[in-house]
């Protein structure tokens, strides 16, 4: 059996007046049928029923005003005889709602005298106790009474209220604000610490000798969290634009090969050093990309400090700055780059190297990807990504030839530069790499 209740026809509706019944006891209703009209402050609204069956009782008379949720009618299963259905009115409403029940024959008069609509299965409690329960927001359902015949007493309700306020097992430990702060900073697990402070609170002194959190972050996790924060900020704040350019690396690589033949093994250059130097030289011509965004203004870089994205074996990423990449010979730059990368992997970077980069260069070509769409490392305003140098069909003098080609992607901050400027930067980069001897 289902109840048809006074519906809530708006967030501000507390009660409604049953205007008119459109059905009578014994009528069949189907899900969606309009069965009553309810008058609210906003007008008369037709109300539909959500159960199918037979109307077994109309509990509220026309013109009666009742709170939202009050049962208005009982809808029985189709074909079920009304006589076999016991009356059940929830306890909460029973006191205030006038009930007009078509009493089924099987319900004995004896039971009815128990309380004129009281919940026969529900908890037993005096009105005063019910009121107290309501005040303390304690549901009587499920409370075991300690009074006569299991009646719920005022004390039962108040105890239940206190029990409810108690912290759910260990979730909220009593600890002073200072000690909580210390525990957070030192990653101390205080759940098993015995408090000696006022009212048994854990104080700073109690934390001495407490174990560190088992789940204390490893340096690698910390690094990953920092990366997450920086990249989230970049994606949230920086309006990125991207331009991509394919560069013929044939000349540069040939030059490098010849150069390396003249050098001892300890002086050999890698192609990366050409890329770093050419980026620095291109930035000389397009300095708006070599800068940092400080809140509302752009601060031009005080040099061409290229952050090298160095992945750490086993996870993690750092982008220390290779300072003044436009200066010194390629060999010197190579030596500094080797030193920086080695120290980055050994975890021996200097703090200045972690913050002074004015642009970042990332190369994933070693792992074979064709191109990279990198995210700017705030507060920088640009990042250059190199893909793999792959042999590709390339048109030279109307002839298709095989050439080593690299795809370069510039990601830049649109608050500081625009795609046109970015494209010109990549063009400059291309021209510089066609004349490697001048680098």
């Amino acid at each position: 059996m289902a109840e048809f209740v006074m519906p809530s026809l708006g967030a501000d509706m507390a009660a409604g007046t049953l205007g008119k019944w459109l059905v009578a006891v014994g009528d069949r209703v189907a899900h969606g049928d309009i069965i009553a009209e309810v008058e609210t402050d906003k007008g008369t609204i037709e109300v539909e029923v959500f159960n199918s069956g037979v109307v077994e009782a109309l509990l509220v008379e026309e013109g009666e005003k009742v709170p939202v949720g009050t049962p208005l009618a009982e809808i029985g299963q189709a074909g079920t005889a009304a006589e076999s259905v016991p009356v059940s009115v929830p306890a909460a409403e029973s006191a205030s709602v006038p009930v007009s029940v078509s009493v089924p024959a099987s319900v004995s008069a004896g039971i009815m005298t128990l309380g004129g609509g009281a919940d026969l299965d529900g908890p037993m409690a005096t009105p005063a106790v019910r009121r107290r329960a309501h005040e303390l927001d304690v549901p009587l359902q499920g409370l075991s009474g300690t009074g006569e015949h299991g009646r719920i007493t005022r004390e039962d309700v108040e105890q239940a209220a206190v029990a409810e306020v108690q912290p759910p097992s260990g979730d909220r430990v009593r600890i002073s604000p200072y000690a909580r702060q210390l525990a957070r900073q030192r990653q101390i697990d205080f759940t098993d610490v015995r408090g000696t402070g006022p009212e048994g609170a854990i104080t700073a002194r109690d934390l001495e000798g407490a174990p560190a959190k088992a789940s204390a972050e490893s340096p690698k996790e910390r690094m990953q969290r920092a990366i997450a924060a920086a990249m989230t900020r970049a994606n949230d704040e920086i309006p990125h634009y991207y331009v991509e350019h394919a560069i013929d690396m044939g000349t540069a690589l040939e030059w490098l090969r010849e150069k390396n033949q003249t050098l001892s093994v300890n002086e050999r250059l890698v192609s990366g050093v050409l890329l770093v130097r050419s980026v620095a030289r291109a930035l000389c011509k397009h300095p708006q990309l070599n800068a940092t965004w400080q809140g509302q203004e752009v601060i031009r870089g005080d040099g061409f400090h290229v952050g090298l994205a160095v992945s750490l074996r086993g996870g993690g990423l750092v982008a220390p700055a290779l300072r003044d990449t436009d200066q010194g010979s390629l060999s010197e730059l190579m030596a500094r780059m080797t030193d920086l990368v080695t120290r980055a992997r050994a975890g021996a970077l200097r703090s200045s190297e972690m913050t002074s980069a004015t642009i970042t260069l990332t190369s994933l070509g070693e792992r074979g990807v064709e191109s990279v769409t990198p995210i700017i490392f705030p507060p920088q305003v640009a990042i250059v990504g190199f893909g793999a140098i792959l042999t590709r069909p390339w048109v030279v003098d109307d002839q298709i030839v095989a050439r080593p080609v690299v795809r370069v992607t510039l990601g830049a901050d649109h608050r500081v530069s625009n795609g046109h400027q970015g494209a010109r930067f990549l063009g400059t980069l291309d021209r510089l790499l066609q004349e490697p001897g001048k680098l």
Partner: protein
Amino acid sequence: MGVDRRPRPPHVCEGSVVTTYREAIRTALRRLLLEDSRVFLMGEDVGRYGGAYAVSKGLLEEFGEDRIRDTPLCESTFVGAGIGAALGGMRPIVEVMTVNFSMLALDQVVNNAAVMRHMSGGQFEVPIAVRMATGAGKQIAAQHSHSLENWYAYIPGIKVLAPATVQDAHDMLLAAVEDPDPVFIFEHQMLYGIEGPFDPKATPSSPWQAAVRHPGSDVSLIAYGGSVHKAMTAAEELEKERISAEVIDLRSLRPLDRPAIISSVSRTHRAVVIDEAWKTGSLASEISATLAEEAFYELDAPIARVCTREVPIPYAKHLEDAALPQVPAIIEAAKRSLGNG
């Protein structure tokens, strides 16, 4: 501010003498009267009687009736006259017998002295210094024993000082007269007779900053005026039980030296505020709220307040003692904050 908040031990330096709080105020009064012809003292019984607490004894004879003026028993009149004199270019020092009586002059204070600079767009200033006794302990009953200085500390536009030491009693009066704004000085009636080191020629320390009277590391006892001495006694008692209490003397009640309070509690992580006013709406409440707002994560225990029971101060000795903050209560509160009370 670069101020050394660390305590200066209470020893008698060269040039210092031991004198009373009352004598130190009189020394300051004489000096002001001698050095500045604009200065005059005015109040009930300050002349022939020598002041209700005998602070101005002998000054009438020395400076004459023009400069030591006995007034009718009407606080609103003579405080108002002082405000007028200050507006007119004088440097009046007004003595009100006790803070209890000063209520009659509150209209002059709140509606004239405190607002004149503001309402005149800075054209008028009111360089008045008002001294009055406060506090209980002499069995002079409810109408002479209340601590209402927090009512004054509530008012923007005036400044409020509470000297707790002999030196401060002298220095603060000099500073109050020198200040271009109305300054109210609350002298706890139990302090007039205390003795302490006093150097009349010492460069006065700024009256607007709190002082550490007793250094400590376990708990801060924050007090002002008469309560400072009770806090000092409590700190000495606690020391015997190896509890290191720091006593902060607020000195200025408006402006409050919040940085000093926060700095001390950031060292000790526990605070007991001692205030002879009633707890509800007291300066102790203001300090507690400041700590909760600005030093929450430094607190290792709930803030405790030791204040006067919320009753009119009784006449009977045992009841008066029971109503006021006393050393055992301060000790108990300090221990409770350490978790072993």
